[in-house]
């Protein structure tokens, strides 16, 4: 079988024939790496769309938030439709605030803590959503070259066995088998390089977005804390 593959290789060295001549393991490696590449680019497209959307949302929300609009009105308009990012944190904090005041909060410190908790939980959820699947990018980026190399080693091994069988070291006999084996490494690198670049870029973007959310959480927490002091102080003085 191997000798016939070698004989055929001398006539046709296009990509498809190289793939078809490869052994079972090498084919499996190539198909797996192709799948990894597809997955990588799916993540890249998804993330770049999502991050762009999130950045635009953040900008819009910050514009609205700092426009001097009443927080109550803002909460009413935002709570009606499901949101993500900064607006989700705002909604979570405002919901906690409202519940506390509707039932009559006793301690301003307890209220502050509950609001912070609510915002932290939302922040964690949001940043998790941002960083989801980035780890698979990292895995593909680091493992794909090795998988491709594995395919190459197996391919070269089998092609050397075929050479030993054919008892000829003519370069025309040796070359197709090695080209076929190297195709595996090429596909591995094709999958890995975008994955590594995308992982670095998206993890940086996710870090920036998370930092922005944390900054908003701190600021909003400070605003609410001031509001609590203003609302609870007359009540405490009245008592």
């Amino acid at each position, binding site marked *: 079988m191997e000798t016939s593959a070698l004989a055929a290789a001398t006539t046709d060295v296009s*990509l498809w024939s190289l793939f078809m001549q490869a052994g079972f393991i090498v084919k499996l490696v190539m198909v797996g790496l192709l799948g990894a590449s597809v997955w*990588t*680019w799916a993540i890249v497209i*998804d993330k770049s*769309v999502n991050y762009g959307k999130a950045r635009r949302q953040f900008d819009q929300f910050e514009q609205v938030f700092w426009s001097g609009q009443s927080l109550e009105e803002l909460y009413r308009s935002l709570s009606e439709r499901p949101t993500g990012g900064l607006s989700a944190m705002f909604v979570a904090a405002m919901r906690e605030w409202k519940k506390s005041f509707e039932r009559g909060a006793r301690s301003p410190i307890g209220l502050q803590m509950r609001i912070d908790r609510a915002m932290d939980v939302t922040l964690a959820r949001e940043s998790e959503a941002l960083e989801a699947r980035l780890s698979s990018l990292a895995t593909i980026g680091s493992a794909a070259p090795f998988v491709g190399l594995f395919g190459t080693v197996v391919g070269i091994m089998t092609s050397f066995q075929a050479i030993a069988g054919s008892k000829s070291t003519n370069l025309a006999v040796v070359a197709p088998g090695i080209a076929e084996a190297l195709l595996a490494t090429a596909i591995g690198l094709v999958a890995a390089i975008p994955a590594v670049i995308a992982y670095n870029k998206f993890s940086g973007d996710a870090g920036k977005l998370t930092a922005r959310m944390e900054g908003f959480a701190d600021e909003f927490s400070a605003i609410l804390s001031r509001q609590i002091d203003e609302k609870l102080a007359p009540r405490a003085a009245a008592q």
Partner: protein
Amino acid sequence: MKRSLVVSAVLHALLLGWALLKLGAPETFDMANSEALPVEFVPISEVTQIQQGDKKAPVKDIAAPVPTKRPDTVANAENIGDNNVDLKSPPKPVEKPSNTESAAAPKPTDNPLPDPSDKPNDVKQVAKEETDIADPVPTPKPEPKPVEKPPEPKKEEPKPEETKPDQPTPDEQALPKDVPVPVAKPRVEKPKPPEKKPTETKTADAKAAEKAASDKKKAEQKQEQAKSAASQKSDFNADEIADLLNKTEPTSGGAKRSNKEVAFGGKKTTGGEKLSQSELDGLKGQITDKWTYTAGLEGAEDVVIEVRFSLDEGGNVVGDVEATATGGPSSTQNALLSAAKRAIRRAAPFQGLPPEKYDTWKDVIVQFTVADLGG
């Protein structure tokens, strides 16, 4: 996420489809246009030894004889010329090339024709007398035959130009017919009768025997004279044997063709008469390999050692190794001399010497300096 996965898969499919369609087999390297560069390993001896060429032509890089005009006909021809047959004679300006190769008959044969002198006749008489001697041995009646014979030589003498070897046999046959008794005996081999003669002739006829013996001696002498005369007559020259053997006119040399411009060189390419530099270096290298050089000898760099030794065909040292040293202090000389002798003994048998050139490396003289030993 699903949408982006689909987008990614579609993009990959498109890219792969494009790659498979457009990136077919890469262009094969076109070997037809590139010209192969022949590389030849030329032993130095081919450069240093005499190359075939013309002695009168100006010196050029490549020695070449006078160019010939006809295409190559004889494979492995050695002599330059336009012939169809490889003749050894040097090319001479003659109009037609010879097509035949034939051995020449000796020139002297033409000379005897004008003068039917005594010398060729003498040779014949010798042969005849031997037959006479053969006859008297078996029969005790040799007397009448010499009497009868005198007319016979006279018959032969006028015929010397005719076929020579035929005549003795009719004589032999004619004699027994005259005499009925000795029918079977004339066939007896000739060398035997002379031995028997002295014993029998004494009883029968001493005179006849003596006469025969003396005739024979004379005949032998004459024959020798005739031979030497013949050899003196021919213009035999050892240097031109090829010419002598060749009856055909030495027209224009051999059949080896030359198409290069004539350049200085010898008549033939001489090869294998000297050890080439590489072979000599190889021999030297085998000695230095076995030479344990002790560094730090005083004035060693000034010493030149010359060793002489004989080798047999197997490369073994025969007899003693002579070594002489010049320059440097004598203590260093002695140390290096003994080291050289040891090295040669250990290096034998020498490898890589061409057996066909044994005459050239039978006696080896090699010089060494400390630089050769890496010191």
